């Protein structure tokens, strides 16, 4: 039972264009959402997050959008750079109960071509 789904295993974009990575969730108790980026042979590193009280959070080239009614979030990278090539994981955490636990999607491999 996958509570966080990233349905695109991979995405390829041209340098300078927009990358859009999508994530869907099923648990309505999820209250906080994070994106992590992972390079090969390294651990995931935090990229950007959003609380359920917001619908958008922006940090430089990275913007995360949250649509609570659709239980959908997306990460936009503009403009995309070759150094952005990595696996991106969407993660979610509930407001209460096991609110220490992050539930992750399977990840999307982004390749940015020069």
């Amino acid at each position: 039972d996958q509570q966080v789904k990233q349905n695109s295993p991979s995405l390829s974009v041209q340098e300078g264009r927009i990358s859009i990575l999508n994530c869907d969730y099923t648990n309505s108790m999820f209250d906080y959402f994070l994106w992590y980026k992972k390079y090969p042979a390294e651990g995931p590193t935090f990229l950007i997050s959003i609380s359920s009280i917001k619908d958008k959070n922006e940090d430089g080239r990275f913007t995360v959008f949250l649509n609570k009614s659709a239980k959908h979030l997306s990460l936009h990278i503009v403009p995309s750079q070759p150094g952005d090539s990595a696996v991106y994981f969407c993660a979610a955490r509930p407001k209460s109960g096991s609110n220490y636990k992050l539930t992750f999607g399977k990840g999307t491999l982004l390749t940015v071509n020069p």
Partner: protein
Amino acid sequence: GAGVSQSPSNKVTEKGKDVELRCDPISGHTALYWYRQSLGQGLEFLIYFQGNSAPDKSGLPSDRFSAERTGGSVSTLTIQRTQQEDSAVYLCASSPRTGGATNEKLFFGSGTQLSVL
């Protein structure tokens, strides 16, 4: 230390042998987590420590898996009688966990790549 440190970075073992994986969290972080990533899968939660106690062990796949944390710092994940399906990257993470804020982020180590032959 500056970041979460895990050792070894790679471990190859024979089926049936025991292995120990070590995690050194960021100094001062009270919360410590073990996750694993099998090929083509997301990060799967294994266990959560708050200080030296583990209030949530629900992700441990079987009784062959155990973990401990001592001195509120270093943690060891032990897998007994390893099986081929245990092959995965085992990731450790830590967080300050002050007040249990839901906006807290986890800091991950580079992981241990475990291969069971």
